[in-house]
């Protein structure tokens, strides 16, 4: 699945700020790190500020500071500020009323449900741990299931 750019920027910015909750970080610093325009990022930050996840700090060395609860804010909470994560709407047209289209919609809905449950279960605090794990990758066992069926 793909996230809209605003959702991705919001998650990146929140992770930067939540990692250093006592510090202020400027939009320019975050923009430079992720290679995005300050203009676009500023709009995202204003949206996060409106819901209290960050607060702006004025003056020299000003920027944004994390003001949310990293252990209670999930990725889904953040994404929903910028895009709809509900079930896909039925398209118009005769084909969409066919059993095949309904069956396909049911299957895609299953995927959407899993995506929502996953994003709704990962908090910013958990994400920070995953980020740390990426910095110091440990040897992980192969994740593939054996092909042998239950016997």
């Amino acid at each position, binding site marked *: 699945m793909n996230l809209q750019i605003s959702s991705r920027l919001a998650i990146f910015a929140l992770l930067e700020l939540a990692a250093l909750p006592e510090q202020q970080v400027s939009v320019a610093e975050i923009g430079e790190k992720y290679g995005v325009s300050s203009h676009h990022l500023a709009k995202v930050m204003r949206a996060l500020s409106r819901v209290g996840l960050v607060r702006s700090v004025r003056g020299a060395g000003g920027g944004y500071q994390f003001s949310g609860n990293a*252990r209670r804010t*999930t990725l889904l909470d953040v994404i929903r500020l910028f895009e709809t994560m509900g079930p896909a709407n039925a398209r118009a047209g005769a084909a969409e009323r066919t059993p095949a289209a309904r069956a396909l919609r049911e299957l895609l809905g299953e995927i959407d*449900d*899993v995506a929502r*449950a*996953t994003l*709704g*279960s*990962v*908090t910013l*605090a*958990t994400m920070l*741990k995953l980020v740390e*794990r990426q910095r110091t990758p440990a040897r992980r*066992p192969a*994740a*593939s*299931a*054996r*092909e*042998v*069926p*239950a*016997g």
Partner: protein
Amino acid sequence: MNVSSPTTADAETVAVRRVRAGDIADVIALDERVTGLAKPDYWRDVFDRYGERRLNERFFLVAEPVAANGRSIVGFIIGEVRAWEFGSAPCGWVFALSVEPRTRLHGIGRALFDSIAAEFRRAGVGQMRTMVARDNRLHLMFFRSEGMMAGPYIQLEKELE
């Protein structure tokens, strides 16, 4: 089994140990408070199977305040080592976890999780697994926060007509 030493939680110090027959009434009551459903026969059966048999691979652990003074347990976790189901190499399965609601966010769930993970390691397995209802946000968030990720299996089911 090695009984875990007392584990310091944020706001309450608990000791994690094996379940005893005298704990089952507390387990039943805690589960009923959390789920709204009393299942005394189920929990007595679980105790028979996981509290008394094959203890080298079955772990029914409870958390109790160190200064218990007659206070009841504040959480439990149950799991076992299973091998070759679904073609899986031996793996630790957690199938029950409950923490007294008034004591949540004090590190008790983590103490239980860490203790059973240590037991699984001692039993010789290097991986643990669980299954959580998609809409059970509390448990999903907890297990995610403990580093659990989606595994290589997909659960499927069917309505029997």
